[in-house]
């Protein structure tokens, strides 16, 4: 599927922020099941940005600037995807899978979440699917299951996209990407899935990406990938309870959400009154 993506973020630094260093993880990479035809990240200062690969093989932009008021960042381009039932083709720039056995502060989970899967280790695929279901049930907001959740979320997404982002439609039927940050529920479920998988000795990583219209779900999203020695990395989207499809565009992978925040900003040291800064992404 050919997806046209236009995504805008707004960073609002406090008035006395001074100079900022920003780190952007907003560039998708080519994979066996994802080909980036064109991609642009735009913001003031991007012309002088340093661009490099981080420890997980993600493309990072490092931008310096002295913001004047609100800062608009846009990421846009065209990506062609194929549905592979969630299997992610290996990439040469990614680290060894064992790295993703590391426990992090964000991926700690209670043994009650995964204990009962210990006897399923011989069938890793079945285990991971069962785990996805378990995580999804455990962390779903109470009551949401019963509601017409699709319509509900769709209207939420639309209101956000109207109020907080500008989206463009292209001739090819662009998928408008609302500019909300990743929903806490998606992040929490991905972390729970990852923590449980690691506790069961299965390497698992956190993935950010775009979701381009599955039952009204759109925008920045997060899911998990788990490692299986014969198939490689397989995506699991516990919030949507499915393996990623050709409507999931992968942006970046890491140990947890802290590794792959789409935008991170800190004030340059030595500037006056810049002890800490809140960056809100609208």
């Amino acid at each position, binding site marked *: 599927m050919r997806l046209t993506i236009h995504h805008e973020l707004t960073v609002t630094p406090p008035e006395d922020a001074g100079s900022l260093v920003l780190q952007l993880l907003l560039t998708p990479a080519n994979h066996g099941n994802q080909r980036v035809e064109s991609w642009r990240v735009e913001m003031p200062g991007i012309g002088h940005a340093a661009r490099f690969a981080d*420890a997980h093989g993600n493309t990072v932009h490092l931008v310096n600037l002295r913001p004047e008021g609100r800062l608009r960042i846009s990421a846009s381009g065209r990506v062609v995807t194929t549905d592979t039932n969630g299997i992610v083709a290996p990439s040469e720039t990614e680290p060894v899978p064992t790295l993703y056995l*590391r426990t992090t502060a964000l991926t700690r989970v209670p043994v009650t979440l995964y204990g009962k899967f210990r006897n399923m280790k011989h069938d890793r695929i079945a285990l991971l699917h069962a785990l996805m279901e378990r995580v999804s049930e455990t962390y779903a907001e109470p009551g949401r299951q019963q509601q017409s959740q699709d319509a509900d979320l769709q209207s939420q997404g639309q209101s956000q996209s109207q109020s907080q982002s500008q989206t463009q439609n292209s001739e090819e039927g662009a998928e408008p990407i609302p500019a909300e940050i990743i929903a806490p529920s998606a992040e929490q479920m991905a972390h729970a899935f990852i923590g449980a998988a690691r506790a069961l000795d299965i390497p698992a990583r956190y993935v950010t990406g775009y979701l381009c219209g599955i039952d009204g779900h759109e925008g920045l999203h997060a899911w998990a990938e788990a490692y299986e020695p014969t198939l490689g990395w397989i995506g699991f989207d516990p919030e949507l309870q499915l393996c990623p499809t050709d409507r999931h565009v992968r942006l970046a992978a890491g140990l947890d959400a802290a590794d792959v925040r789409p935008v991170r900003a800190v004030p340059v040291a030595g500037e006056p009154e810049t002890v800490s800064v809140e960056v809100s992404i609208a």
Partner: protein
Amino acid sequence: MDENVPFDEMYASDGSVREPYRVLKQWIEEQPERALTLMQSDAEGLFRKLGITFAVYGSDEGNEKLIPFDVIPRIISAAEWRRLSKGIEQRVRALNAFLYDIYHRQEIIKAGRVPEKLIVNNAAFCPQMMGLNPAKNVYAHIIGVDIVRVGPDEFYVLEDNLRTPSGVSYMLEDREAMMQLAPDLFQRSRVAPVETYPENLRRTLQSVAPDGSGSNPNIAVLTPGIYNSAYFEHSFLADQMGAHLCEGPDLFVEGGKVYMRTTTGPERVDVIYRRIDDEYIDPLTFNPDSLLGVPGLFNAYRAGNVTLVNAPGTGIADDKAVYTYVPAIIEFYLGEKAILNNVPTYNCTDEDQRAWVLENIGDLVVKEVHGSGGYGMLVGPTSTKAQQAEFKKKIEARPDNYIVQPTLALSTCPTYVQSGIAPRHVDLRPYVLVGDEVRITPGGLTRVALKKGSLVVNSSQGGGTKDTWVLED
């Protein structure tokens, strides 16, 4: 090793003077009465003038203390040093190869020689280093290996210290003081120089500058600031090398490159000898609350525009739990047997070993896995019953937090104390530089436990230092 009688470096067991100490012994005998007492007080005056002090954490006796200096040098023969330095070089080469592997394909884990969880779930392992290729594939450029001697040819490595080992300024100042105090003794001996250290450090740092840094790469020493216990050393080394001494706010990253703020405008920095812990070097990548670091610094490093010395994440190779695997690490990467011994280490998470440890705690040394500086440790033979009971409880509560080793009979050297000259236990920290080549300064820092019978040489626990001589053939 003989458990009861420690090896004396000056006197053989038959009472004769060992060859390396022959000249020293003669010189001491020639000294008029009270000469050493005077020398000792001169030494104190010298060190006060030089301003060498160190801060003791958690002490009530004021912040700054003078580190005691003993006027009797410790002497190592050329042959002894050759073997020692060969063993040290072997170790640092293997540990750098290990670091490269651990942060790339992890072949040693795949080969089953080191347990996977010990590495990837270790707090000292730095995931951000994955896939990064530091200049010349060197991670640990500046190393201070802690070595103890227990016999004529028996040396043990206690710790490898691959993070930011300190104390090299004491090595240099001890030599300078000794040359002022006893110039005639130097005339009668051929002592290998240590004064070359700052120059070798500068060469080592320049040799690992990123490609395209030009013929004279710019070096900065990054210090946490004046309140750090080793600030004196940071400024001393910067001064000796002709490098800039910087604090975090003096540096900034622009376009993925690192610059220093100067009165004449920004100046590009190629190599940073950082004396700030990993966690604090860059609030963008590591601890966001850090005010000591430089935002974007780690990214500039990843982009290949600056070299950090030592690399972040070297701590995984000197972790106390990884330590027990160093002989296996040497064999895996170099195909050689370790020249220097590892101290046998008991693993308290193993039930049988733990039971044995708890039974025999009075004969053992207990160390915290992540402790340093002699804090949080128990030396069985000199401990009280109450202290032993306390450590038994600690081990039972958190067996993975402690390693346990036999009490080594550290060698002794003649030391000037109140009652005259008496043997005191010593260790040795040689300083190793790894860049385009491995450079080991002959000798190093000898630390001496000034209290009779004490085996704890840390300056924070009442240890002193000695000038350390390596004799030339």
